[in-house]
């Protein structure tokens, strides 16, 4: 009997140990499975990125071999003689993005300043939501709106007086010359500016909000006007973050395809006039890929893609780096 009573707890203890081991094993197994699943999902992204780079590079090899460095500096894009150069689309891409930022950045900063400093509370939310909705509109809608509404309006009411006004002004006459097409580099830049505005605005607003109130209050206390507080306290404090937001917007502007294709005019030319039609890298690819006959033509289009990839990669890398720096400072 005694032995038996002593055996009971012993047996159950052993069972307990076994149970615990089994449970632990099960836990470990599910942890392992989970870890492998998450890791392979993450690795998958890297593999896709690597695959895209590799595919772009291999695809563009024939064109790069044929034209060499000349591909980057030649303006010719002639499917008849199979002479291709990237200069016109690269110029169009950089020019439209640059002009878009030139318009969107001041606008976006003004909106962000209004929202953080001057806006009555009840108006904050509607404006904030409107800005976010602007970011949610599909780019094809911008394209259609640009072609059917904005372009005819510009052609009839804005461009003719622009051309007339600057006709005899040296320097500016070259920027605003030629027949009013309605569509072209200028129209594409306007559309892009509207599209990147939400990026610039919402990131600026967030970083402005992160400025310690005590700094602003101190400045107001010294008798600064709102403009002076923004100019000498808020902007310097948030400079890096604002630049990061601008870069993110720039990344979108550089790669934007549909909206630009609608309103840029799709002409492989570099003109001094901002009203003249041009083209961008992504518009060229979207337009010509399906009907590109011949290996060299297709390969040249893929090489354009590679160039755009490199440009956006660099821009986004800079943006991430700057945003990381400000996050570290705020955090």
């Amino acid at each position, binding site marked *: 009997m005694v032995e038996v009573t002593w055996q009971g707890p012993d047996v159950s203890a052993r069972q307990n140990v076994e149970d615990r081991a089994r449970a632990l094993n099960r836990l470990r197994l599910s942890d392992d499975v989970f870890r492998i699943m998450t890791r392979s999902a993450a690795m998958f992204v890297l593999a896709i990125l690597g695959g895209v780079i590799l595919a772009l590079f291999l695809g563009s090899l024939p064109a790069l071999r044929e034209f060499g460095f000349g591909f980057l500096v030649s303006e010719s894009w002639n*499917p008849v003689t199979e002479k291709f150069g990237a200069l016109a689309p690269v110029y169009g891409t950089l020019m439209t993005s640059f002009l878009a930022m030139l318009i969107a950045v001041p606008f976006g900063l003004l909106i962000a300043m209004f929202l953080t400093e001057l806006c009555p509370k009840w108006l904050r939310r509607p404006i904030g939501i409107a800005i976010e909705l602007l970011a949610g509109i599909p780019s094809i809608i911008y394209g259609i709106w640009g*072609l059917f509404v904005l372009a005819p309006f510009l*052609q009839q009411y804005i461009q003719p007086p622009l051309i007339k006004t600057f006709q005899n002004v040296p320097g500016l006459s070259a920027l605003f010359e030629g*027949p009013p097409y309605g569509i072209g580099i200028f129209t594409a830049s306007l559309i892009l500016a509207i599209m990147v505005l939400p990026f610039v605005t919402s990131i600026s607003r967030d970083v402005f909000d992160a400025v310690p109130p005590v700094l602003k209050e101190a400045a107001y206390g010294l008798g600064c006007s709102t403009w002076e507080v923004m100019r000498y306290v808020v902007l310097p404090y948030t400079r890096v973050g604002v630049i990061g937001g601008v870069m993110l917007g720039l990344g979108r502007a550089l*790669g934007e395809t549909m909206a630009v294709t609608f309103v840029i*005019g799709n002409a492989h030319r570099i003109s001094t006039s901002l009203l003249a039609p041009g083209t961008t890298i992504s518009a060229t690819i979207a337009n*010509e890929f399906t009907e*590109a*006959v011949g290996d060299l033509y297709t390969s040249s289009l893929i090489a354009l893609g590679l160039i755009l990839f490199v440009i956006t990669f660099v821009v986004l890398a800079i943006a991430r780096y700057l945003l990381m720096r400000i996050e570290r400072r705020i955090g």
Partner: protein
Amino acid sequence: MNFIKTIVAAGLVAVSALPAVAADISGAGATFPYPIYAKWADAYKKETGNGLNYQSIGSGGGIKQIQAKTVTFGASDMPLKPEDVEKAGLVQFPTVVGGDVPVVNLDGVTSGDLKLDGTTLAKIFLGEIKTWDDAAIKALNPSAKLTSQAIVVVHRSDGSGTTFIWTDYLSKVSADWKSKVGANTAVEWPAGIGAKGNEGVANNVMQTKGAIGYVEYAYAKQNKMTTVNMINKDGKSVAPDAAAFQAAAANADWVNAKNFYLILTDQPGAASWPIAGATFILIHKQPQDPAAATEALKFFSWAYAKGGKMAEDLDYVPMPASVVKAIQAVWSNEIKDANGKPLLTN
């Protein structure tokens, strides 16, 4: 993001062009004849139970797919040169005829008010004639009300058989155009703005005052656009319509054209529209899948016999009977199975 999209799109095109289920005929290529092929396929399926799976991926894609043997037939608006047809072991034949039409957007000008000849048209598209009241245009249209409105040239931004027909015509009538630009499905345009697809050009012309562009006849007709009359090779002014395309096709020397390599631009005949063109089918001489190829030939045979009315309804011109006869002779002489037996005999 956009490259990923492009690559995904390319992948989808490749996947969608895989051989279809055995009973269905698979084809890929030109977008211009897609409406009529789709209509024929629908009627043919109702009559015979055999379906046709046609992917309108563009002429360039059609040529690539038939060379890669992923489809039973390829379709192209630009005929392959006879040596290329031979080299690839293909047979080429035309199915329907259509035409390019110059369209304009000018205040106070309606269809037929304006007429142009080839040289003037080439100069406009070269960017040498910049305003509508240019002496060359005025000389052809003494009574039309033309202002100093700037000319906005609208052309296709994507490669297209429509562009091939257009530039081929300009190359034939203008030595300048031939040496500076040439003829192809896509060219280096010296002037103007580009728009994607016939509908893109149509929209841009309708949006832009002073614009001139070119579209397939069907688009001009359906959108009720202002068309321009052309002065043809015989020096006669003709309006773009089915009868004028028919005249161009009838006056052409199909029977002596090797591999039916014939571009219907600048054809003789008082009633001929000068900017017409046929669309073509490409099929292997010794198909990998003779059963599918036979089905495809049966389909086109049926289309020639019974599809004429449907083609006319959609503003295409069916092939003249003499040409159909010549095409069917080529089929029975050249398209054979592995044993050298013709797939289809008449």
